[in-house]
C-alpha cells in the first residue's frame, strides 16, 4: 500500500460512499419512533400576533404536538431568546413576526400529511405593522423599529464585545476603523474618487436543505442529528436555550450536502428540539427549498467609497461607509460587518482611513455567513473603484494594484505585521493566465468572431481576508493494535475534502498508508472540541492539531522503545512507518504488542491548537494567517444587446502548501463558480417584503451551460510558519475577486461601469445607450 503523503493527490476517503449513493445525509436517516415536524411561518414582513388558536390543529389524526409561543415562554426549562451575538431571535415568534417566513408555530405528527394539515388549521390573528424593507428606509429618522429592545448581548465572542445595538435606531452594530488623519490625507490627494456600489441578498442554495432530527429523553438529555458546520456552537446554544450543561447535549453531524457558511450557528435545531421536547418523541424536520430562503441569506450591501489618490497612483486616503442589510435578526451579521470594515482598504497600504461599517436591521429574512464573509461585499467596491482610478489616471490596473499592494512585512490596517503574503505572486499568476499584456483585441472587433458587434475585455481583482481569531481546534488520534489509525475531530466534511487532508497529514507524520486511516464522523460526545468548520480554518487549525496528535503518538512509541528495548532516545528514528534502531527496524504493531503483551491496546495522541490575538513574538494579530488571492476574467460583450460571455477565468490563491493539489484546485474553481453565479445571475428579489423567487427556477444558479470554456485554478505556495507543512486555508478566497474582475473586464471591453450586482445584459445595454447619447 502506498504511504500517505502531502503535496500529492489521493483519492478522497469520502468518494466511494458518495459515488455509490450509500453516503448518509440527514434526510436519509430515521430514528425509531420518529415523527415529522413542519413549521408554520409568517406571511407578513412585520406584524403583531394577537392570538393563536391551535384547537383544531391538535385534533388532527396523527398530530402529536403543536408548538407555539405559550410553550416557550411558560416553560421554565426554556430560555426563549437566543442568537450567536445578540439574543434577539426566538424559537417561535413571541409577540411579533419580523420577516416573511419567521417561524410562528410548529407541528409534530406521525405523517408529513397530518403535520401539514394541522398547520393549515392553526388560526392566527395578526395585526400588520409598518415594515422597513431596505437599509435606506431603516436608517431614516423615525423609522419603525424592527426590535423595540435587544436582549443583553451574549458573552460568547471576545472580538465582538465592543459592538452593541444602538438604542432607538435600527442599527444593529457600528464598527469604526480610523487610521492616520483623514482630512490631511484627502488634502494631500491630487484626485478624489467617490462612488457608491451595491449588491443584493443572495442565498447559499446548498442542494441539501437544512434538516434536523432531535430527541429529548425524560432526564432532559438532548440528542440532535444536525446539518451544521459548527456542532460545538450548536451544542452551546442548545445548552443555553434548554438550560442544561453541554454534557447533556449531543450533536451528531453526518456528511453535509454543502454548507458555504449557510449552516453555521443554530438554524432549525432549536425549534426541532423544542418540538421533540413537547412531543416526547424524536422529531425530524427537513426544510423545503423555499424555507431555506427564509432561514438565512447573504447580506445585501450599499457601499459608499471615497478615495484620495496622488498623480502617481498612490492611494492616500479612504473614507468608506458600508451598510449591510442584516435582516430581522443579528445572527452573525455584526461580525460580517466588522470583516467588511477591516477589508474596506483592500489589500492596499492606505495611510489615512475612516471606515464605518454598519449591520442594519430590516424586516427581511436574516443574513449571516456566506463564503467570503463580508469581504465579497467590500471587495466589490474596493476592486471596482481601483479600475475607475486606473482608468482616470491612465494607469495599468495591474500596476496600480502592485504599486499599492501589500508586501511581506507591511502593516495591515490594524497596525499588525503581515507575514507570508503571496499577494503579488497571485496577481502575476492570473495576469499570465489570461495573457494580460496582450491587448491586441482591445475595444476592436474580436479576431475570428462572427460579427462586428462583439468586443473583448480583460479585468483583474484581488483580495485579502482574515480567519476567525482567536479560535480552538482539538484532535484525538488513536493508534490501534494493528497500526491502523483513527482520527477524532469536530471538523465537518461538507464537501471540502477535510477527511482526506487530515488523514494525509497524520499519515505523512506516521509514515502509514491512507487506507489504514479512518477519520470518524462528528459526534460531540466522542470528538474533542472544535470551534467551527468555517472561515477557511480547518486545514490550518485542525490539520495542525492532527499533526500534533500524530507526533504525540510517535513520542509515546519512542518512550516504549526506550523502555522495552533499552535503546537510548537519540538513537531512535522514524521512517516509512517503521521505528529504526541502530541494529533493526520495528513495526508499530510489534511495539504495541511489546507494550501491551498481547494483540490489543490503544495509544491515544492528542493535539490542541489555540490561536490568540497575540502571536509568538507578542505582536498583535487579528488573524492566525492571511488569505490573499487574485482573479482575472476575459469577457466578450455584444455592443448591440449588452449580452456578454465569460471567455476565460483565472483564479490564483496563496494556499501556503497544496497538501492535496486536486482538492485545492476543486476549492479554487468551485469558489470561483459560486462567484460567477453571484456576479452574473444571483439575486433574491423582494416585493414589499415578500420573496418572489425562493425556488431554483426563479433564483438562477450557474450550471454547466454557463461555464466559460476555461477556469484556471492556480495554487501559489508561500508557506505559513504555523500551518501544517506550511498550509493555509483556501475555501473562500477564490470567490471574492470574481464579480469585480468581471465588471472590470466589461468596462475594458465596452467602457460601461456596472456598480450594482448582478451584472446583467440589460444594465450593460443601458450603459451602452448612455454612452451613445
Amino acid at each position, binding site marked *: 500500500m502506498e504511504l500517505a503523503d502531502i503535496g500529492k*493527490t489521493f*483519492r*478522497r476517503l*469520502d*468518494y*466511494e*460512499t*458518495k*459515488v*455509490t*449513493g*450509500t*453516503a*448518509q*445525509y440527514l*434526510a*436519509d436517516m430515521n430514528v425509531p419512533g420518529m415523527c415529522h415536524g413542519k413549521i408554520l411561518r409568517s406571511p407578513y414582513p412585520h406584524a403583531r400576533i394577537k392570538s393563536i388558536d391551535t384547537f*383544531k390543529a391538535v*385534533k388532527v*389524526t396523527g398530530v402529536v404536538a403543536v408548538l407555539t409561543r405559550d410553550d416557550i415562554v411558560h416553560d421554565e426549562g426554556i430560555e426563549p431568546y437566543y442568537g450567536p451575538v445578540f439574543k434577539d431571535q426566538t424559537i417561535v415568534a413571541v409577540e411579533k413576526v419580523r420577516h416573511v417566513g419567521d417561524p410562528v408555530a410548529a407541528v409534530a405528527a406521525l405523517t408529513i*400529511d397530518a403535520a401539514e*394539515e394541522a398547520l393549515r*388549521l392553526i388560526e392566527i390573528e395578526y395585526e400588520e405593522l409598518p415594515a422597513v424593507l431596505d437599509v435606506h428606509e431603516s436608517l431614516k429618522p423615525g423609522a419603525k423599529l424592527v426590535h423595540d429592545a435587544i436582549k443583553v448581548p451574549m458573552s460568547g465572542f471576545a472580538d465582538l464585545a465592543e459592538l452593541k445595538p444602538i438604542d432607538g435606531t435600527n442599527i444593529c452594530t457600528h464598527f469604526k476603523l480610523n487610521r492616520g488623519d483623514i482630512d490631511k490625507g484627502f488634502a494631500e490627494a491630487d484626485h478624489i474618487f467617490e462612488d457608491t456600489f451595491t449588491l443584493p441578498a443572495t442565498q*447559499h*442554495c*446548498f*442542494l*441539501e436543505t437544512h434538516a434536523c432530527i432531535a430527541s429529548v429523553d425524560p432526564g432532559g438529555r438532548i440528542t440532535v442529528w444536525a446539518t451544521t458546520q459548527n456542532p460545538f456552537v450548536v451544542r452551546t446554544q442548545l445548552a443555553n436555550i434548554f438550560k442544561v450543561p453541554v454534557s447533556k447535549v449531543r450533536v451528531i453531524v453526518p*456528511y*453535509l*450536502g*454543502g*454548507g*458555504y457558511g449557510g449552516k453555521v450557528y443554530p438554524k432549525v435545531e432549536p425549534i426541532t428540539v423544542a418540538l421533540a421536547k413537547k412531543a416526547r418523541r424524536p422529531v425530524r424536520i427537513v426544510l*423545503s*427549498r423555499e424555507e431555506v430562503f427564509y432561514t438565512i441569506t447573504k447580506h445585501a450591501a450599499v457601499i459608499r467609497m471615497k478615495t484620495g489618490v496622488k498623480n502617481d497612483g498612490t492611494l492616500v486616503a479612504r473614507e468608506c461607509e458600508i451598510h449591510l442589510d442584516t435582516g430581522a435578526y443579528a445572527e452573525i451579521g455584526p461580525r460580517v460587518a466588522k470583516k467588511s470594515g477591516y477589508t474596506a482598504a483592500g489589500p492596499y497600504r492606505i495611510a489615512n482611513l475612516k471606515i464605518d461599517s454598519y449591520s442594519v436591521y430590516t424586516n427581511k429574512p436574516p443574513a449571516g455567513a456566506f463564503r467570503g464573509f463580508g469581504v465579497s461585499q467590500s471587495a466589490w467596491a474596493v476592486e471596482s473603484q481601483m479600475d475607475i482610478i486606473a482608468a482616470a489616471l491612465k494607469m495599468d490596473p495591474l500596476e496600480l494594484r502592485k504599486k499599492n499592494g501589500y508586501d511581506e512585512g507591511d502593516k495591515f490596517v490594524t497596525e499588525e505585521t503581515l507575514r507570508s503574503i503571496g499577494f503579488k505572486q497571485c496577481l502575476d499568476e492570473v495576469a499570465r493566465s489570461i495573457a494580460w499584456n496582450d491587448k491586441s483585441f482591445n475595444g476592436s472587433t474580436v479576431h475570428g468572431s462572427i460579427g462586428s458587434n462583439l468586443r473583448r475585455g480583460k479585468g483583474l481583482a484581488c483580495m485579502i481576508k482574515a480567519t476567525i481569531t482567536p479560535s480552538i481546534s482539538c484532535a484525538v488520534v488513536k493508534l490501534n493494535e494493528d497500526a491502523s489509525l483513527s482520527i477524532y475531530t469536530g471538523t465537518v466534511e*461538507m*464537501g*471540502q*475534502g477535510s477527511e482526506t487532508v487530515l488523514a494525509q497529514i497524520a499519515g505523512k507524520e506516521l509514515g502509514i498508508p491512507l487506507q489504514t486511516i479512518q477519520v470518524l464522523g462528528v459526534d460531540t460526545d466522542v470528538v474533542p472540541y472544535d470551534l467551527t468548520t468555517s472561515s477557511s480554518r480547518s486545514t490550518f487549525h485542525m490539520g495542525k492539531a492532527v499533526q500534533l496528535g500524530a507526533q504525540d503518538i510517535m513520542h509515546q512509541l519512542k518512550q516504549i522503545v526506550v523502555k522495552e528495548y533499552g535503546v537510548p532516545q537519540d538513537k531512535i528514528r522514524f521512517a516509512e512507518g517503521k521505528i529504526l534502531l541502530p541494529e533493526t527496524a520495528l513495526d508499530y504493531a510489534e511495539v504495541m504488542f511489546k507494550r501491551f503483551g498481547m494483540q490489543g491496546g490503544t495509544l491515544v495522541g492528542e493535539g490542541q491548537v489555540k490561536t490568540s490575538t497575540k502571536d509568538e513574538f507578542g505582536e498583535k494579530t487579528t488573524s492566525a494567517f492571511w488569505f490573499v488571492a487574485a482573479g482575472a476574467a476575459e469577457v466578450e460583450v455584444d455592443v448591440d444587446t449588452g449580452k456578454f460571455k465569460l471567455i476565460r477565468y483565472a483564479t490564483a490563491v496563496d494556499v501556503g502548501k497544496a497538501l492535496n493539489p*486536486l*482538492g485545492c*484546485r*476543486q476549492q479554487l*474553481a*468551485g*469558489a*470561483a*463558480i*459560486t462567484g460567477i453565479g453571484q456576479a452574473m445571475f444571483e439575486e433574491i428579489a423582494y416585493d414589499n417584503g415578500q420573496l418572489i423567487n425562493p*425556488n*431554483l*427556477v426563479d433564483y438562477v*444558479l*450557474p*450550471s*454547466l*451551460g454557463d*461555464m466559460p470554456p476555461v*477556469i484556471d485554478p492556480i495554487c501559489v505556495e508561500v508557506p505559513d510558519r504555523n500551518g501544517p507543512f506550511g498550509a493555509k486555508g483556501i475555501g473562500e478566497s477564490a470567490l471574492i475577486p470574481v464579480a469585480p474582475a468581471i465588471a472590470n473586464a466589461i468596462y475594458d471591453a465596452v467602457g460601461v461601469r456596472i456598480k450594482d450586482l448582478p451584472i446583467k445584459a440589460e444594465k450593460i445595454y443601458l450603459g451602452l445607450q448612455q454612452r451613445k447619447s
Partner: protein
Amino acid sequence: MMDGIKLDPASQPVKAPAMKKTISLIVNGFQRSVEVEARTTLLDMVREQFGLTGAKLGCDIQVCGACTLLVDGKPVSACSVLAVDADGCEILTVEGLSAKGKFHPLQEAFMEFGALQCGYCTSGFILTAKALLEEYPRPSEQQIRDYLAGNFCRCGCYQEIMQAVKNVAGS
C-alpha cells in the same frame, strides 16, 4: 347531506382514504411489485419504500437534477413523476450501477478526476451522464454541456465533471 346531521362549515375535514395501486417495475435489474398511493412520487417510492436513498430531493420542482433516475434508460426528475406512471418501467438508481461490486466507469472517473465535493448532486450527474453516453457514445463538448446543464453542482465541480465524462467517452 343526510337529514338530521348539521354540517359545521368549520369542522375538521375528513381525509379521503388514500387511493392505492399496485404497480410492477424493474428496479436495478430486479422485478418488483409494490403498492403505492396514487400521489406518491417516484422519488419518495424509491427512497422510502425501496430504501434507495442515493437520489436526493434538491429543489422539488424538476430543475436541480439531484433526484435524477433513469426510467427505461432516460433521465427523469423523480421528484416530479408519479410512481404509478412508472408502472411497467425499468428503473435504474445509482445503487444499481455498482451492484456487482465493481464501480461503473463513470463512478471511477468521477473519483479519479475529482468530479464531486459534497456528493449531493453526484447520483444525478452520474445517471444523467450514463444516459448521455448511451445516446451519444462520442459526445462533443457542447453535447456534454447541453445534456448536463439540467443538473446543478453547487460546489462547482463542473470542469471536473466535464473531464470525467470526456474520459469515459474516450473523447
